[in-house]
């Protein structure tokens, strides 16, 4: 039985995933690495040696960063490579790689000058990534990415043709992508379902991103003077303002919604609503057997009360709020609000 790995970290991490992702199995953040195996080191060298031989000279610090190694690990690997070669292991029969004055230098290729063939996993990754990038609004479909893909194509196994990625088509993504690169301010009219209100804001776009089938824009909101994330499909109007701000690089970790403080709830999920456990990330999970039913108690972060009300409605009677107490009747209240609407409108047309 595959068990999902719950997000153990902070609410910060789960908050990020919450809006982001009807989650698959969450990957564990790599912790401190243990000693690297011989196979790992050789695999790494077989990638790094052709790479450095092609470049001849690269800074040790830059190369370590490029390959996700500490400088000590890189030096250790390259020192080992430098004593490898072919019999009789005289200096001219060893791999010509050495370090001098903070630089890695590899001038005379002996063996290992060509990279290994791409593995199936690597071919899968590079083709899917290129194919996806080509779908981005405004992508040059006849540009270098297409021609690169065409050059890789002969290496692809035949099954690769039927692997496809679909990106959601959302209005304004193209304009916002351009705004992220130009720094031009835009006025947006935005609808917030949580408050049921529309507002007009002036934003400077910092990053445009897609996740779990939706497009978002991270921006400086000049009204609130805060960094905000907006769902692009909820932007109803977009107008360029003609004022340009300096471009600022934003790391994913710094996106504002990832650091929002989210309230946590504990839900009891009945078998009928098990899709919730599959679809949303949770912080912890306990399997229970109650009255001959296998229920799951999950603790998760929520984005708003409105969001939780919506989840409870959709789950029908399959979910109960255990904690906090103030949300215990939220499902009923949400249902009552809709019921009032039906009663008010009377019979159908």
């Amino acid at each position, binding site marked *: *039985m595959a068990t999902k790995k719950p997000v153990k970290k902070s609410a910060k991490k789960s908050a990020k995933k919450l809006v982001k992702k009807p989650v698959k199995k969450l990957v564990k953040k790599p912790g401190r690495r243990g000693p690297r195996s011989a196979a790992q080191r050789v695999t790494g060298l077989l990638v790094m040696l052709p790479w450095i031989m092609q470049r001849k000279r690269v800074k040790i610090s830059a190369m370590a960063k490029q390959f996700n190694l500490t400088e000590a690990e890189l030096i250790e690997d390259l020192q080992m490579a430098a004593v490898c070669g072919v019999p009789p292991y005289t200096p001219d029969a060893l791999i010509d790689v050495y370090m001098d004055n903070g630089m890695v230098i590899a001038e005379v290729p002996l063996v290992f000058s060509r990279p290994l063939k791409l593995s199936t996993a690597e071919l899968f990754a590079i083709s899917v990534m290129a194919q996806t990038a080509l779908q981005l609004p405004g992508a040059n479909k006849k540009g270098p990415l297409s021609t690169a893909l065409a050059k890789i194509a002969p290496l692809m196994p035949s099954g690769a043709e039927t692997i496809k990625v679909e990106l959601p088509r959302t209005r304004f993504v193209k304009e916002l992508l351009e705004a992220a690169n130009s720094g031009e301010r835009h006025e947006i009219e935005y609808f917030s379902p949580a408050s049921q209100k529309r507002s007009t804001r002036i934003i400077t776009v910092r990053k445009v991103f897609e996740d779990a089938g939706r497009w978002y824009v991270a921006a400086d909101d000049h009204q609130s003077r805060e960094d905000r994330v907006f769902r692009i499909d909820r932007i109803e109007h977009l107008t360029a303002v003609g004022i340009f701000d300096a471009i600022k690089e934003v790391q994913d970790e710094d996106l504002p919604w990832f650091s929002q403080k989210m309230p946590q709830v504990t839900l009891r999920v009945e078998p009928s609503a098990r899709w919730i456990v599959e679809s949303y990330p949770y912080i912890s999970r306990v399997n229970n057997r109650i009255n001959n039913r296998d229920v799951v108690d999950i603790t998760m972060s929520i984005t708003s009360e409105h969001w939780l009300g919506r989840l409870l409605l959709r789950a029908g009677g399959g979910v109960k709020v255990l904690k906090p107490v103030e949300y215990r009747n939220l499902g009923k209240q949400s249902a009552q609000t809709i019921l009032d609407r039906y009663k008010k409108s009377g019979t159908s047309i």
Partner: protein
Amino acid sequence: MPVKISQAERMMNLLALLVDRTRPLTLRQIRQDLGKQYPDSDEAARAAFERDKAALREMGIPIETKTLGGDAAGEVTYWVNRSNYELSDLRLSDDERLALQLAVATVRLGAQHGEEALWKLGGERKLRPTATSVNIGLVDENTSAITDAVMKRRTLNFNYKGEKREVDPYGMLSRSGFWYIIGFDHLRKDQRVFRVDRIDGNVGVSEARAFTTPVAFNVAAAVPTEKQMLAAGDGEQTTAVVLVDAALAAGVRNEFGDSAVIRDRTDGSVEFSIPCANMSAFRLWLFAMVESAEVLAPESVREQVVQWLEELVAGK
């Protein structure tokens, strides 16, 4: 005495030797050439050599073997054919490498394979953040087995919804945050769609069996959209009239198209004709809009919605 040497170093030397020599070598010759890098005892040397050979093969280096006859009957020779494991020069231009670099930096897939491919293609991983990112993360313990099987057209075995399935994977699709496998299900004897994250436990891949994908197979058309899901059911009513408030109307129009619009009201709300043959899918869709949508007709569907709501209010 063997020289003190790490396994990594010995593997590098073994590979360099096999690549460098034009003739196949026996283990005896390899030990001689490597000059005491393997243990002295035949048994220990053989075991260490087998370990190195297995690890190199695991990395994608095909070490070929041939058992000799004649005077050397029974002895095995080993060699590596560079063209079988080295990447041929794809003659990528700098612009093409940069375009791939940007694609790898923009699209999140969950593992580092994209970066590894870039390095092998002579490129570099982009270290600065990009202004755009797309997350199609395929993070699953079965990822490599599944993608390998799909690319090489091998049959998959896995547990799904409590049943053992044997599936010829015709294709894969990433849509709305999920990855799907579409293939021929030997249990149902028909084409079926499976969500990768719903597979229970480990996936097995058959070694021998290969299959052919139907000529007319279209991966995107094989996975039903939400609209098609709502219509795929045996409910008595096939469509419902749903009034959606102005705030959400644009989204629904975008999803179902102009042909689903019955009437635009003056306050900006819109009446849509929405498929509802699959009532549980319809319920999920409808309640996602909370109080911003209302079923107007037919009466039986409206009554069903009211009944659901009353049950919720009553705490049933």
